[in-house]
């Protein structure tokens, strides 16, 4: 079943508006092949019905699923580097002191996509925390497909090439055919859950660190404010929030202040007592 010219033009305009990606005519096959699984997952009869829904009122979930399917979604391990070095050099040493009684850390990776971020965090914590400490990572994403993939923990060779140090690859993964599978130990340290940040949150408990990176970019200003407000409710008073390098709370939620941690930036609530050696900008 081929995409009609008007449906293709609609999708091309949609993805240009939403993700600044230009789809030249002739990419009908690409659009068809990328959208077919989205339609299937949404219980629709085909891509034509999906485009019909998109033309009506798709809602944020379908909108994002379509955007994700049409954008090359290459996530790196230890993405952007700096938040992870800040974690091992400054934040975790601080938490070792401030959580010395509980000896337990809770981290939320919100918008975890195919799982590179929560697994990177798990690798880092396993290597860093002294004996007797435990941790819990909750990883959520709006896409059921992504949660399935992340939970399976199976990555292609191209995916494990992206920013994952070779020593960690051979230590924490095992080769299976053309893929690499995360170790059972690593898989057990992350709990995956499908979750829509644009709706009220289920009870998640309180977190020491929340990673909400490159997620806000998908939302309009009001939704951004709502999402940040919800996240506030899950942070411990001295907890830290990490956003993508091009994102900020400034002008959206004045309850947060920006703090420099090494060469990275994080956000904490204004009334907070510093958790680690983080200093004001």
């Amino acid at each position, binding site marked *: 079943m081929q995409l009609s010219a008007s449906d293709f033009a609609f999708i091309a305009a949609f993805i240009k508006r939403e993700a600044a990606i230009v789809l030249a005519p002739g990419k009908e096959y690409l659009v068809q092949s990328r959208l077919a699984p989205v339609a299937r997952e949404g219980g629709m009869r085909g891509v034509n019905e999906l485009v019909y829904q998109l033309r009506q009122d798709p809602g944020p979930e379908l909108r994002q699923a379509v955007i994700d399917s049409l954008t090359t979604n290459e996530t790196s391990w230890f993405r952007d580097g700096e938040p992870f070095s800040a974690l091992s050099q400054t934040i975790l040493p601080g938490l070792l002191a401030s959580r010395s009684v509980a000896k337990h850390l809770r981290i939320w990776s919100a918008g975890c996509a195919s799982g590179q971020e929560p697994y990177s965090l798990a690798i880092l914590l396993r290597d860093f925390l002294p004996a007797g400490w435990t941790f819990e990572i909750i990883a959520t994403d709006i896409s059921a497909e992504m949660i399935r993939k992340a939970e399976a923990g199976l990555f292609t060779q191209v995916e494990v090439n992206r920013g994952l140090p*070779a020593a960690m690859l051979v230590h924490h993964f095992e080769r299976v055919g053309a893929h690499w599978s995360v170790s059972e130990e690593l898989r057990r340290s992350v709990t995956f859950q499908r979750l829509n940040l644009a709706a009220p949150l289920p009870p998640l408990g309180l977190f020491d660190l929340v990673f909400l990176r490159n997620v806000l970019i998908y939302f309009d200003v009001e939704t951004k404010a709502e999402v940040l407000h919800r996240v506030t409710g899950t942070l411990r008073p001295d907890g830290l929030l990490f956003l993508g390098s091009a994102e900020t709370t400034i002008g959206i939620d004045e309850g947060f202040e920006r703090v420099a941690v090494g060469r990275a930036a994080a956000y904490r609530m204004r009334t907070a007592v510093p958790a680690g050696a983080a200093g004001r900008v």
Partner: protein
Amino acid sequence: MRAIVIDDSRAMRLILRRIVGQLGFDVIEAEDGKAALDTLNSESEVPNLALVDWNMPNMNGLEFVTAVRADGRFKDMTLVMVTTESEQSQIVRALAAGAHEYVIKPFTQGAMLEKLALLGLVPSGATA
């Protein structure tokens, strides 16, 4: 900054040259491990980085890495294997022989830059 690209495929040497050249490296090439050792021995300036294929005639990449690690003159040279050899045991062998990082072919330009960034060889922000 100087890099040596060691691969028996001219096409692979060309793209590796282009990628590290963009980072400001002055790039020299060799077709196999033996030719690379000859080049290193004849030049006064030791490269900061070597990108090394595994399967090459005359001297393979693992032998090259082992030889370079045994020679104090090259102790500051960062060694990155770039190869289709992707069995877990092969990666372990290369790291044990002294390779600092390992890039499996096929790789994207972004993947290569990220690996070099892990080694502190990329100016901050260049991988974004």
